[in-house]
């Protein structure tokens, strides 16, 4: 499918006759990237699916007010990140579990996840990522797997480029240490 530009999508969305079709195209265009971003944060497919639904419904309601001071993809990543963090925090509160406890649970879920098809090395890498603090985990996933530029990441996470570079560096060191300790 040929990708439409942000301008084309927004123009179609502004027209009542093509509004829903435009949004359908937008979902098709970004769903994979947004899904796997969410999935790497919450691990479970059903949870990712619930969050995906919320993200795109929120985007539909707010797209009229989208000011174009960032790309649509950056804006969607921002919504998805916030929704995923909110989800994990509420899960933590419901289970009365500290964050470390939740990471252990996510790590165990990973081992029993039928939709995780990675090999042993990938499993170890994901488990190592789950031991990172929340911000470092986000930075590592966006940089390592999605090869996102620090400038775009800075818009999504509201953190300076310098701080993001430092976060990534710390994350890499911690992951290496974790792997060596196995």
């Amino acid at each position, binding site marked *: 499918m040929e990708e439409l530009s942000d301008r084309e999508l927004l123009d179609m969305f502004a027209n009542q006759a093509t509004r*829903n079709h435009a*949004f*359908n195209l937008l*979902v*098709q265009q970004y*769903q*994979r990237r947004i*899904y*796997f971003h969410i*999935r*790497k944060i919450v691990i479970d*497919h*059903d949870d990712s*699916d*619930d969050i*995906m*639904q919320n993200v*795109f*419904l929120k985007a*539909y309601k707010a797209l009229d007010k989208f000011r174009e001071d960032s790309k649509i993809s950056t804006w969607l990543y921002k919504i998805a990140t916030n929704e995923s963090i909110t989800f994990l925090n509420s899960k933590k509160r*419901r289970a009365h579990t500290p964050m470390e406890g939740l990471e252990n649970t996510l790590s165990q879920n990973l081992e029993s996840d039928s*939709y*995780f*098809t*990675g*090999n042993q*090395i*990938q*499993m170890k*890498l*994901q488990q190592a990522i789950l031991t990172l603090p929340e911000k470092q985990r986000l930075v590592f996933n966006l940089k*390592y*797997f999605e090869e996102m530029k620090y400038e775009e990441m800075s818009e999504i996470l509201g953190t300076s480029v310098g701080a993001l570079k430092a976060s*990534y*560096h710390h994350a*890499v060191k911690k*992951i*290496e240490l974790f*792997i060596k300790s196995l």
Partner: protein
Amino acid sequence: MEPINLNEDSQTDFPKGNPFEVPDGYFDRFPSRIAEIIEGKETTKIYTLKTVFKSIPFLAVAAMLVTVSIIGLKLLNQKDNSITKEEISHYIYQHGIIEEIEVDELVNYSSQSSLNEMNIRSTASKEELTVIEHILMEEDFDMNDLINEL
């Protein structure tokens, strides 16, 4: 899947591919699912079986709270309607009805006895009932008056 270094000075190689998968056809169905919700064909959220199972513990806790509340309310209402031994004793003493009978005996009797308003109404004659009602309506009602009339 080509292994790469995490960064330039890293000694460890890791595959960079995506290890996560989705159910078959998930990305084919998702856009139409969102479209259906937006167009109002489906106003409620789609719950997967796993999501429903996850909420069972919370539903169980909620059901238990409701049950405990209902039982608690019933017990409270019962307590409001019941008369304590002290209240009975105080009433008897104030009105000088009975002096010799112990309160416990009275309570036991009242719980075992079939004497109630309906029994009185069925055993007393019409004239007797009129007299009883008349005495009860008087402000300075005295039990001795009632016993004498009967």
